[in-house]
């Protein structure tokens, strides 16, 4: 008897090469992409002292928005040794990272890489990083129950080319003698082992190409132009903090930042099959944007600004419209009119599920927690027609499954830092 199967096994799910990983995926990408990736500099002293200083190296679109690198690999790493790392290991990690920088130029068509460290890593020294509040991760809403990530370190690899993130990953794992014509002086082999691997993509066309996953309707619900599964642009220049604003400005880790990484599962069948375009615009941006038809297509017409100045405060929409928009709530977390985090998030098919790896950087983890509190809209739902999730931005369509907090040190201290590198 033939039965339709729903669930993962039903899907004729074709994973992208980046999602699969490994040597054959690297070969397949290299074959298909047919590009000469520019080599990096020989003089590493010319590179920015901030690991997170990506924006100057990245392209800008017609509106001045930073163009996010299209392919991502994030590796959660456990330190192999007992106790605290040695200077030899520190040097090995630095050589490995330096080799990546020599192999690939920084930029969309090359590679951007950061390494960050968890509270658990610093606990090896029975200490906290000097001058930085780095709390263990925790649930950030009364309605979420995430698993908490506690690897030692996290590497974030980003490029417009799948072969670059895969090549860099393989090289760090010790599987390439040379990369893009440059010798790998070292790898992470023997120092770190990979505890988890997360992959994904962001940018026009990629969500539509990767929509045959659980959590999305069958067919082609996702717009070809959409950079993310939910169908709208994000990362508008004016909705992002500046790199200066998220940089730690004092102490031995000055020039660094903090990173939060969550894994969010998306449930977008209702979003695409039951909500109207009006509802999607209202819930993503604000009801006023939907009433006035301010968002065309995926939102390119908004330019560099999602237009939150033209939305009423969330409480007013909640009281009178019975709903409130996601961006509208998030804008409440601004400090002196400026956002407090930089989103460097990307969508994912990991596990065969539509997902979002929400990676953000901010001066302190508290900046992230407060931004997330604003997004929860709990103060908005209390005393109004808005539910905890119903008509409350996009909360109905997501489940936060994992959270982790990290210190992303300045480049000088990126390799197995001591809690007080100045000491």
């Amino acid at each position, binding site marked *: *008897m*033939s*039965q*339709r*199967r*729903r*669930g*993962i*096994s*039903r899907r004729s799910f074709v994973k992208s090469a980046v999602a699969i990983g490994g040597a054959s995926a690297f070969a397949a990408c290299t074959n298909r992409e047919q590009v000469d990736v520019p080599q990096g500099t020989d003089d590493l002293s010319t590179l920015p002292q901030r690991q997170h200083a990506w924006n100057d190296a990245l392209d800008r679109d017609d509106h001045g928005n930073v163009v996010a690198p299209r392919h991502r690999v994030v590796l959660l790493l456990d330190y192999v040794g007992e106790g605290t790392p040695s200077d030899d290991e520190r040097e090995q990690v630095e050589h490995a990272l330096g080799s990546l920088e020599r192999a690939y130029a920084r930029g969309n068509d090359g590679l951007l890489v950061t390494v960050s460290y968890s509270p658990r890593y610093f606990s090896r020294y029975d200490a906290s990083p000097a001058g930085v509040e780095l709390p263990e991760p925790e649930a950030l809403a*009364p*309605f979420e*129950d995430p698993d908490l990530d506690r690897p030692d370190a996290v590497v974030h690899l980003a490029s417009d080319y799948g072969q670059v993130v895969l090549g860099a990953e393989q090289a760090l794992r010790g599987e390439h003698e040379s990369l893009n014509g440059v010798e790998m002086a070292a790898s992470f082999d023997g120092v770190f082992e990979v505890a988890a691997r997360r992959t994904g993509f962001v940018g026009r066309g990629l969500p539509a190409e990767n929509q045959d996953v*659980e*959590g999305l309707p*069958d067919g082609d619900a996702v717009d070809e132009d959409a950079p993310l599964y939910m169908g709208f642009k994000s990362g508008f220049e004016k909705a992002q903090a500046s790199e200066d604003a998220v940089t730690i400005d004092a102490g031995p880790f000055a020039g660094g930042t903090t990173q939060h990484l969550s894994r969010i599962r998306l*449930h977008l*069948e*209702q979003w695409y*099959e*039951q*909500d*109207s375009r*009006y*509802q999607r615009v*209202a*819930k993503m941006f604000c*009801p006023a944007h939907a009433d006035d038809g301010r968002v065309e297509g995926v939102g390119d017409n908004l330019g560099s600004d999602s237009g939150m100045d033209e939305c009423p405060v969330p409480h007013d929409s*909640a*009281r*009178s*419209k*019975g*709903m409130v928009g996601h961006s509208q709530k998030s804008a409440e977390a601004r400090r002196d009119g400026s956002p407090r985090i930089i989103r460097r998030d990307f969508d994912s098919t990991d596990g065969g599920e539509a997902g979002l790896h929400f990676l953000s950087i901010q001066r302190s983890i508290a900046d992230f927690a407060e931004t997330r509190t604003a997004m929860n809209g*709990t103060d908005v*739902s*209390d*005393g*109004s*027609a*808005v*539910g*905890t*999730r*119903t*008509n409350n931005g996009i909360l*109905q*369509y997501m*489940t936060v499954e994992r959270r982790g907090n990290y210190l992303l040190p300045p480049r000088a201290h990126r390799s197995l830092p001591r809690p007080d590198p100045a000491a």
Partner: protein
Amino acid sequence: MQRRDVLKASGLAAAGSLAGCNGLFETQSLRTVPLVEDRPDAVYVPSHVEGMEMIGMGTKGRRAVGLMYSYPHRFWTVTGTRTEKVSLREEDSVHLMATVWDVETKTVLPVDAGVTVDVRRDGESVAKRSPWPMLSQNMGFHFGDNFALDGDGTYSVVVDVGATSLARRGSFAGEFADPLSVEIPFEYEQATRDEITFEKLPDRKGSRDALSPMQMDMVPLSTAPSAGDLDAMTTATTESGDATFLVAVVEDDDGPYLAVSPRTPYNRYVMPLMSLSATLTRDGETVFDDALPAAIGPSLDYHYGTTIPSYEGGEELTITVDAPPQVSRHEGYETAFLDVPAATVTL
């Protein structure tokens, strides 16, 4: 093979295996029962009535979760004063309904955090979503949505219930503050589903009335209290937008408590997810003018209320509906309670 063809093929196979095939054709026809023409902007009798079947229930502490199903059907979501019709998908197998209640008082809890339903089979998630808070004529308030299953077989339905942050009164104080999760087994068979009653209502449809509430032994309905049930200093009733508003002032330790309990006509179901505010005047002077947050308690049930500075009798209360109930609507409710003008009542 296109999905439609697959459905057709499996439908034919099922028909061949049945002695009669009434169920099959009934199923086909229900999907095309047209909407009532010229629906009033009020509660009306829908084109048909469907039964429902209990799947099972789970209990943790004071809370019970009941899970029921029926045929998949159309409903309307609400954002602001707009409704959006949700049509059936070809692949939809059932309409799943979850309801949460307090076992001690049998009070339905329209918890603000909602529920998440994960339908699993062989350890895999078949469908996971947060069903809409809903109002239907035969069931009242519940959480529901249409789900596509894998066909006949054994499923496990995990229902996660969020913690409530609603104000809780009386014996509800401090209760329901933790999330809970129950797992309910579900043996699904299309042939059994097709035995659920389904009756067209050619004579009653469109009239200003409502279907009778379901009689279920184990599952309480979200019925609001009548004035006589309350131990109140005063009660009064007014109507607007086809909703009835029972207003009560009850004596609390910290002063008089003003409760506004909007409910559906005919069946007296509570109406969650509204923005309500109230202005209380005495001899032309404003005594109170503010929003009324939602609250729940064993006697007042789900309502909107707050403590007021004083109550003497004879005050005039104006109830303003800033946003109508944002609950999704089953057929017969989708045109009602959307345009709800302010209403005034003397206490």
